[in-house]
């Protein structure tokens, strides 16, 4: 029997190494489920950092196990296997509810709090936001970007070696230029020697080599017939031959781009809707920051009145009040006219609202006005999580989906007005609707669910020149 104390037990990195291997596998899973990951609320509400911790389902190891294969209700995502029944222990009489959790896939955000039923094991994985963006937005970018003729912005893009000087430090020596100078000077000296002594250039070079670069000594050598004709002439370096590189800041010319992000913060924006708006714009902004070194982003929030705010306020503060959508558009137009003229700037306007507008007619005229400015893109996104229940959708047969369209239109929102006014090519995806007008560079999206955020971003950020 014995007890041995190992205060400094070898903390081998094996656990970490194997954990990394598991992470690699999770990365694959994240790639496949990126739209679930980006809808994770904690990322947006979290203090801005480079890394975020997100809950990830640990990968399973498969064995033959018992379990029911009855069709699971809902999407069955969070459904634990065979989780329908079990033996427990504690206080309680028949009929007592010992635990409760939200139904999977009922499409309601903000209520996504975990139930108190132990579900599957989750692991908190630390993920780099940049990495997520990289995974998500491969091949995405701002559409319709143009070279603006006037006044491109000078953008520092690091350092470059441009000029050569006679003074400098040894590490920055420019070998080629230095040798060139030396050869030039040696040839010059040789021809001088040749002139002075009447010998050939080759002999002169030999003399110069023998005299170790001293021209007077070389002439003397020849004159006193001490020239050793067996030596190979080489180039003799002198201080004055030295050339050094000089570093300078480098600039690139970039097309200017500005993104004007507008968000409705009025009273009709429930926490669910706000969450969707913020998610959408959060990822848009993060993406732009990552991919474009120099894109200006302006933030506008509005109720009945619009104002320009900073990023922090935009993402973290709430307001309430009535809704004049036109006020935001008006503010954007003002911004474009005063600060970002379209002949110098690529202008992108992204607007998110629930479409519950007090004066849709006026908004339409303002949008017309905005589009007249020939901006690169205007994207209108309407969030409407309560429009229809996922559950209800599932019950409707495919035939009835058109009826669902009717249901939707019964709530008369801004998107309806816009669609009346302009023509779009539309497509539907899992209950979200994406429309595009190529000519006007006008995009709309109608989303209800956090799973729609990713497709919407793809819709807005298709790269097209």
């Amino acid at each position: 029997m014995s007890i041995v104390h190992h205060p400094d037990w070898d903390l081998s990195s094996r656990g970490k190494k194997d954990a990394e291997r598991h992470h690699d596998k999770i990365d694959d899973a994240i790639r496949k489920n990126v739209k679930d990951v980006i809808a994770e609320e904690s990322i947006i509400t979290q203090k801005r950092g480079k890394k975020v911790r997100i809950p990830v389902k640990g990968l399973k190891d498969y064995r033959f196990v018992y379990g029911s294969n009855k069709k699971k209700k809902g999407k069955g995502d969070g459904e634990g296997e065979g989780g329908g029944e079990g033996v427990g222990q504690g206080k309680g009489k028949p009929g007592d509810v010992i635990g409760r959790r939200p139904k999977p896939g009922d499409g309601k955000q903000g209520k996504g709090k975990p139930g108190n039923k132990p579900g599957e094991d989750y692991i908190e994985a630390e993920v780099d936001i940049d990495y997520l963006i990289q995974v998500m937005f491969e091949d995405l970018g701002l559409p319709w970007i143009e070279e603006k003729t006037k006044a491109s912005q000078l953008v520092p893009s690091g350092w470059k070696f441009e000029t050569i000087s006679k003074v400098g430090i040894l590490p920055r020596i420019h070998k080629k230029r230095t040798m060139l100078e030396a050869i030039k000077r040696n040839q010059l000296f040789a021809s001088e020697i040749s002139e002075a002594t009447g010998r050939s250039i080759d002999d002169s070079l030999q003399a110069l080599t023998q005299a170790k670069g001293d021209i007077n000594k070389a002439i003397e050598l020849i004159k006193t017939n001490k020239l050793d004709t067996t030596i190979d002439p080489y180039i003799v370096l002198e201080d004055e031959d030295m050339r050094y590189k000089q570093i300078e800041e480098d600039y690139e010319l970039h097309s200017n781009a500005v993104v004007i992000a507008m968000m409705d913060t009025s009273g009709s924006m429930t926490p669910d809707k706000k969450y969707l708006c913020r998610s959408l714009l959060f990822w848009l902004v993060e993406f732009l920051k990552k991919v474009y070194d120099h894109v200006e982003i302006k933030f506008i929030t509005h109720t009945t009145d619009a104002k320009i705010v900073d990023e922090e306020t935009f993402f973290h503060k709430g307001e309430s009040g009535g809704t004049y959508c036109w006020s935001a558009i008006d503010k954007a137009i003002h911004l474009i006219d005063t600060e970002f003229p379209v002949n110098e700037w690529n202008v992108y306007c992204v607007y998110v609202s629930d479409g519950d507008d007090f004066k849709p007619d006026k908004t339409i005229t303002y949008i017309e006005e905005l589009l007249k400015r020939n901006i690169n893109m205007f994207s209108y996104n309407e969030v409407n999580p309560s429009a229809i229940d996922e559950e209800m959708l599932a019950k409707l047969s495919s035939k009835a989906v058109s009826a669902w369209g009717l249901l939707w239109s019964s709530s008369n929102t801004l998107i309806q007005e816009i669609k009346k006014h302009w023509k779009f090519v539309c497509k539907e995806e899992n209950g979200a609707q994406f429309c595009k007008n190529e000519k006007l560079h006008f995009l709309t999206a109608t989303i209800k669910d956090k799973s729609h955020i990713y497709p919407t971003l793809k819709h807005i950020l298709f790269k097209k020149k």
Partner: protein
Amino acid sequence: MTKNELRRLIKIESRINQIAQEELGLHYYPIEFDIIPPQKMLEIMAYNIPTNISNWKYGRDYERERTIFEHSSRGLPYEVVINSNPARAYLMNDNKFAVQCLVMAHVVGHCAFFSTNKYFINSRQDIVNVLYEASRRFLKYEKQYGIDEVEKTIDAGHALQFHSSPFESRETESEKRLRIFKQLKKEAHVHSGEYKDVIGATEKEINEDIELYNQKLWRRLKLKTPVEPTEDILRYIIDNSFVLEDWQKDILETLRLEGQYFWPMMKTKQMNEGFAVRVHEKIMTRLFEEGLLSTEEHGDYNYSNSLVKAENPFQINPYLFGSSIWADIEKRWDRGMHGIEWDECTDSKLKEEWDTHENRGWEKCLEILETYIDWFFISDFLTPELISEIKLYIYKAEEALDSIDYVITKDTAKEIKEKLVNAFAQSSVPKIEVVNGNYNEQGILHLKHKYDKTPLEATHAKKTMEHVAYLWGRPVVLDTMEDDAVISWRVVSSEWEYELSEEDLEVITQDLEL
């Protein structure tokens, strides 16, 4: 841990051993304790055995343990013990002193269990070394054959490692064939003379007939693989696979060995943990009585012990459940609350005060220790009275308006017991046999699930079959049942450019969409 504390711990250790051996009558191999930092503890817990091989699953479990530890572990007495000779166990260095004593006493309980219970007889006592050597070899394989291939093989091996039993027969395939041949020959011989007079055949003719029959039988047996259905799937695959390389066989043999090491532990989880709890409670009580631990430490101990024995509304806690049954057994055999007289007594008052001063409780426990595994144990000793006493219930998921509710059912103690016994009888490893290694004369591996009213989970089954197919190198078919109807799943990998013909599809009754 300071030097003084260590000295004190060593003193207490020898007292613990004294109590365990002299007062409780336990036998076990010597135990070596290592005091280690938490990170190392978490790592060992994830790897099960400190020298285990490298695999992403252990990395995952390591992170999981770490997450739990960081969020909610305060005072939880982590323990790991390896069944070897000498036994190895680990103490976490920042545990409180009383908790260290608790863990040591608990480990003594486990070690006594390992060396007494007959299901552990065949366990490899050198599993630590076996895995240590293996992990070094596997690293070499990783360099030589690539981590992906090695990982695939390990994953497949892990999937199948419990499909064998520690009570394997050491009979080879040809020995088996001979045995079955002799058996069938004998059976045929018994009947051969029966209608001699009716047919009017001579002795010679009958003998020729028998000879012919025997030849046919032998030929048929030679074509049959496996000769008789086997549950040791991994063994069969290692011996008969179309594709396995030697290094892969090495990996699989190792994992099969590891599976056999864990097999009895899985089968005795409730008993084993319960027994260890009983032992540590008894020993700790003695230590406090003797004043070896202070009053303050009594508080630490109580807190940790309550965490160990916490009720879980959704799951059975083996520490609590197992120890409750052991305590009940001890009480019943101390007071003679068993046998016909007790069973037939209906007077509840009389029953409450029942005491024949039999005082054989602990003795009975040690008897049970030797021969039982979980499901016999629960079947024999979990009484309906105990079920209501420790408040066990069955719960079911019910769909409410906008949530899923877990509701306690109206099941009686008897029904609860029935369900529990069933659950433990099946344990977690379904019985699956290799019935044919040359199904349809096409080298297809034919597996059969011995259905016992609980179906196989389809996603898991499908993924596991992919593992099997990877090792086997040809298609794999699995027959099982669901809702008492036969279903058959198959895995045909496109990699082998193999397709089942229309006829084959008919043979395989139904292809379930997975």
